């Protein structure tokens, strides 16, 4: 474990790894790691590790100003990769705090003792709806702190259906009907976290014994399975802007906010709110953090109003703080599914079942 080092001058930060390298391989490397900011010699350093689509530099600057620490933000891959890196380095963490593990992987962090329970100061009451297993209602600490939420939903291209004179689909069952044959682009749940979220929805809807049959019917009906969200949305969806041919795609509840016209009068896409699965992204203090107080301050910052109001524009999620005013396009065209309308499973159920479900899918439809 790394002891807290209160004073960390830029010069040392640059020199130390270089000396280390030189000691190891006898070569003097010069010129790298030159990005250390100047003039922060007296502040204590705290490191936040995040997933890939996070505005690192902006948050680092804003969080440093807000917390009084020298906050460094580092990237460690997408949700699954980030989780596994945290699990592998448990005990000697690569950072003090983390952000960006969602409910698909949340249980893995808790069960492997990677995180330290913490309840951030000033946590908004509206966020209690998103804690794991509803914990924290009595003021006790959270195993993981919810920061933002969204939903994975099937999206459609209404104009396409109008043109074809075909009724718009609305439910999971509709997608397997013959009139919607070969119109759907799905995501491989083994490769994409959005795809995994959709899988969770189908398990919640059809049960552990019935979901594979549903997927079988979908693929028999000509659904195309893509590897990543961008392959499906940009590559396959008729409204992806890249000439795709499928008017039905697995995406997010928020996606229609990004297909609005310039006057904000209409959106070219619509999310089917009966096909949604909730996604919650968590933050937390890592066990064995070198700077535990700093890590707690950073988590406090992540649920503060100042950070929460940047979430929709920067990360395409809804903040847990309900008092944040949502952008106009979101409010008009990207409504969240109502409470109880989503198809969800508890993180612990997901963690226990996930591998088996994927195995079953692999055996039935060759995924």
């Amino acid at each position, binding site marked *: 474990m*790394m002891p807290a080092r209160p004073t960390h001058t830029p010069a040392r930060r640059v020199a130390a*790894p*270089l000396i*280390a*390298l030189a000691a*190891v*391989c*006898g*070569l003097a*490397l*010069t*010129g*790298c*790691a*030159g*990005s250390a900011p100047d003039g922060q010699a007296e502040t204590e350093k705290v490191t936040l*590790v995040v997933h*890939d*689509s996070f*505005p*690192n*530099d902006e948050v680092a600057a804003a969080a440093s100003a807000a917390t009084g620490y020298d906050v*460094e933000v*580092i*990237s*460690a*891959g997408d949700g*699954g*990769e980030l*989780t*596994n*890196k945290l699990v*592998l*380095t448990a005990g*000697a963490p*690569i*950072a003090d705090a983390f952000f960006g593990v969602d409910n698909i992987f949340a249980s893995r962090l808790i069960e492997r003792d990677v995180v330290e329970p913490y309840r951030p100061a000033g946590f908004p009451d509206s966020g209690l709806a998103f804690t794991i297993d509803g914990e924290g209602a009595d003021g006790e600490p959270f195993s993981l702190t919810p920061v933002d939420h969204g939903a994975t939903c099937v999206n459609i291209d209404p104009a396409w259906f109008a043109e074809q004179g075909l009724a718009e689909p609305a439910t999971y069952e509709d997608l397997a009907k013959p009139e919607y044959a070969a119109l759907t682009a799905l995501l491989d749940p*083994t*490769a994409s976290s959005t795809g995994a979220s959709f899988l969770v929805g189908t398990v919640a809807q059809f049960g552990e014994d019935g979901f594979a049959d549903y997927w079988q019917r979908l693929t028999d009906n000509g659904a195309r*399975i893509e*590897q*990543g*969200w*961008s*392959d499906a*949305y940009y*590559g396959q969806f008729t409204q992806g*802007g890249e*000439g795709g*041919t*499928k008017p039905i795609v697995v995406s997010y509840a928020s*996606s229609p906010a*990004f*297909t609005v016209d310039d006057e904000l009068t209409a959106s070219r896409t619509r999310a089917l709110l009966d096909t949604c699965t909730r996604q919650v992204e968590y933050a937390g203090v890592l066990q064995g953090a070198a700077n535990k107080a700093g890590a707690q301050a950073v988590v406090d910052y992540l649920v503060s109003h100042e950070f929460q109001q940047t979430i929709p*524009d920067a990360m395409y999620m809804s903040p847990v703080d309900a008092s944040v005013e949502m952008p106009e396009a979101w409010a008009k065209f990207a409504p969240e599914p109502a409470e109880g309308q989503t198809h969800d499973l508890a993180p612990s159920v997901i963690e226990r079942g996930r*591998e088996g479900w*994927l195995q079953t899918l*692999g055996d039935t439809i*060759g*995924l």
Partner: protein
Amino acid sequence: MARRSRTAARTSAWAVAGWTLATALPLAFLIVFFLWPVLSLVATGFTDDGRLDLGAVPEVFGAARTWRVIGQTLLQAGLAAALAVVLGVPAAYVLYKLDFPGRTLLHGLMTVPFVLPTVVVGVAFSALFGPAGPLEWLGLDRTLTVLVLALVFPNVAVVARTVGSFWARLDDSSAMAARVMGAGRIRAWCTVTLPALAPALASAAALVFLFCSTSFGIVLILGGREFSNVETEIYRLTVQFLDLRGAAVLSLAQFAIVAATLVVSARLRRAGERAVELREDAPRERRPGLAELPAIFVFACTALLLHAVPLLTLVIRSLRGRDGDWTLANYAALVQPPAELPLDAPVAQAVWLSIRIAAIAALLALVLGMLIALVLSRKPAAPGLRRAQGLFDGLVMLPLGVSAVTLGFGLLITMHRPLGIGFDLRTSTVLIPVAQALVALPLVVRILLPVLRGIDERIRFAAATLGAAPMTVLGTIDLPLLGRSAGLALGFSFAASLGEFGATSFLVRPGAQTLPVAVGELIGHQAPGSYGAGLAAAVLLGTLTAAIMLIAERLRVDGRWGGRRQGELF
């Protein structure tokens, strides 16, 4: 041999110390930053609560999916290697045996596909064959054909360079004699030239096989689950499932494939080096004539259809807006990224960062690669030393054949204050150039080694006879020649480091967004215009690497002992 004993007698303690150091430095680098992390991660998969647990081996090899994945790996790499050879030989002939204006430019351009990031290649091919792509009507999307074509795309240049540089130095007189005796052009080629080229062909095919069997980005994007190879399966097991046991077993399978390929290629290469006569000077090449038309035709088809079309598709799509209009908006977004794009800063900053990191990686690879090439070019008398040399050679090549995921996660579990240095290297920017240098190192060695091996032993012998000490021989004969190819090697490793995606993307990155990583993130992001900006960034990256390769081609110096012809890749 008399020379050996005499020079050996004169070998001073300093020389022994020098060679030991020249071996130890790169060896230590490879052990610390490659072998240790990779073996640590594999070991984690094979231990359970501190006890050795090999139960995963029969379990994983008992699964049908494992064999499907291994079978796919061998099938894809085999087909790609065969096709790359078939297309690479005419390219080698045109580029290395014929003389025409613009040849140097073509040399440089041919290398571009090789140094392009695999993400870009994958995106370009799916843009071409996928839905709404210009070649969608062929119905080849999601087929093994497209996957193999995409794997061949970067590797024709490998075959062309390997075979071409050898071909150019091949003594034509036997083939001419066969013609004089009445053999037709084709017969003479098949019975005389082709057998002589065989070792170079085999060596090139082995190398392409190695590259393709560990291809990550291309297979992931174009293959999906159906065409998973060992590399993408290790990625899934490690990154998605945290199934380190399964990943460890597959890593062993990968080691086995790499080792077998290296052994076969080394055998074939050695067999070839004894058998054919090479000239020191390349003669003046012939001007293209009617007889060369078939070769020129195949080469032109390869260059236009396989190389130019996917790249042009990419460029054209980067110039299109979301509504299909022509626009520079995608490029403008790189200069002044809108807040919603996952770009930390204007792309110029990512470019500058990439260039700095790649420059360090290239220098590191060049220095270590020179030392390795010098050590490997010696011909020690002791069989033990020769065997050790062979192992060393294999170790240097190994980073090409080991999963980037395994390396990335391995570095994660070993670089926390490694060797008691009291500094956490895991989150340091330093690991990025180190990982890139590991990938570039085999390329540097393969460029430099033929130059040193091509030096006529008699020259060293003559120098020694005239009284030059071994170090003087080294300083006056080996090093100057090495220096001549250093420009090309540096350019190559710089371009390779600049485009490196796999290993870099699995490191923990302290706010350092290199250009290939930015391309990957832009292409996968939800923001409107992000995909287009990603394509624009890919074009920018391709242009940068192309420019570097063209400059590197010019850096080669013609020389008496073969700077120009021998300083080719592999």
